[in-house]
């Protein structure tokens, strides 16, 4: 038995630690890759130029997807706006929870798909979008639906979309730098004879980082994503105060083995449970590292502590 405030506090701290670790790691990776390519190509300020270009490319592409996140995701998923006649349960539950959370009412959308799932997106609470599938709306009762929508609204309230965008800028930056370093290294292999001593070490470090850091950055990104899921679960309970509702909802959703056609890799982390149902077969710790969502038994266990 843990009270909800302790859980939320604990989640906040752990999330902060993961994000801080991620930032430290990506800055280190960028620094090493930049100085290694600077040394490698003979002029040191050159490295900084690479970082600038990579930052612009990674930043612009992510900023576009962040700023238009609502429109892009809705376009991909083929969602239609919810209306209070057809989707009365959905709209009234979302309205009520917004009153409770003190959030402006998000735009509500429905995806015609029998796989039960839901996601939230949008760059800030004023431009938030909450989207549910028809499968979710028909399979859950009111209390369960409240649990799911409260989870999504917590993502909105915690600015998770903003955080994850920031994280993907950094992942993109590291990946680009590593890629360039390796590619250009291949082409200009002959030049490396000139580097000596300390320079050799930095180039060697650069090669190691170029190979490993994109993967590591992505793994930390996934760890952040999983941490934010726990946070959203706890925060949702903070609004509804009914852990049982979310527990049965998650059980129902994960028992459903239909894949969600509208989802793809780019939007997976937004959903309440991973839309790729194949994931459930791999239960090893290793496989978990590559998931956007924590394993369902762990999420349910965390919720049961709050009962």
């Amino acid at each position, binding site marked *: 038995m843990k009270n909800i405030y302790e859980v939320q506090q604990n989640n906040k701290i752990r999330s902060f630690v993961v994000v801080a670790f991620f930032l430290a790691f990506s800055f280190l990776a960028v620094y090493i890759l930049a100085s290694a390519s600077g040394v490698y190509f003979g002029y040191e300020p050159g490295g900084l130029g690479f970082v600038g270009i990579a930052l612009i490319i990674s930043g612009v592409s992510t900023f576009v997807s962040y700023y238009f996140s609502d429109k892009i995701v809705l376009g991909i998923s083929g969602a239609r706006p919810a209306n209070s006649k057809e989707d*009365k349960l959905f709209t*009234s539950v979302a*309205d*009520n*929870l917004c*009153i*409770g*959370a*003190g959030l402006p009412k998000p735009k509500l959308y429905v995806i015609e798909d029998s796989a039960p799932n839901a996601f939230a997106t949008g760059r800030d609470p004023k431009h938030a979008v909450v989207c549910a599938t028809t499968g979710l709306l028909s399979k859950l009762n*009111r209390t369960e639906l409240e649990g799911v929508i409260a989870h999504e609204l917590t993502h909105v309230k915690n600015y998770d979309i903003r955080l994850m965008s920031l994280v993907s800028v950094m992942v993109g930056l590291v990946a680009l730098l590593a890629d360039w370093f390796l590619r250009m290294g291949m082409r200009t292999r002959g030049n490396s004879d000139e580097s000596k001593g300390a320079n050799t070490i930095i180039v060697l470090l650069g090669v190691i980082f170029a190979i490993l850091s994109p993967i590591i950055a992505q793994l930390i990104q996934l760890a952040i994503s999983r941490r934010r899921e726990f946070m959203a679960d706890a925060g949702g309970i*903070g*609004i509804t*105060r009914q852990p049982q509702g979310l527990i049965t909802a998650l059980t129902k959703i994960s028992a459903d083995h239909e894949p969600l056609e509208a989802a793809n890799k780019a939007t997976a982390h937004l959903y309440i449970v991973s839309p790729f149902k194949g994931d459930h077969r791999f239960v090893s710790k290793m496989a978990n590292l590559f998931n956007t969502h924590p394993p369902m038994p762990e999420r349910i266990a965390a919720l049961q502590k709050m009962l």
Partner: protein
Amino acid sequence: MIYLYIALGVLVIWVISTYNFFASSKARIKASIQEIGNQLKRQADLIPNLENSVKGYLKHESGILEMLADARKLAARGQDASAKISEVLPKLTIAVEDNPELKGNTVVTNLMDELRDTSDKVMYARRLLIDLTADFNVKRVSFPFSIVAGIFGFAEMKGFETPESGEFTKVSESETKSPKVSL
């Protein structure tokens, strides 16, 4: 010297942001109290009207059922029920034309949904007040925010006023058992 200025600057920014937290929280708490009033007003307007329209509908339906029962009784006694039937028939046709089946159950279900939705809205409006007040009060007594709260004299917010003691803080022997519903 420069570090001293930086530290002082950070301190000033921190004091301002803490002050702003308390001041804006106070305004939000006020707004959330108004929201409760708003929801209560909606409830007071809505529920009597809903009640009347459902009552009207159920009366209409029970009239038809009563007449049918009367006709059946007459027929069972071997009497001529045709007068009763001809009385109920036109109404029944209307009822069947408009509604393929008698819809009392869905009308009542809708009413129950609407009632739950309404009381949920009031409940969530109170939840917001409780949460905002708790955030305010917790920060007010936590160090180092308590210093700023003390300097600017932010008093504890009352929030959702509930008596702190009384029957509801105790549970009696009979209340520990799960209630059984009997209809």
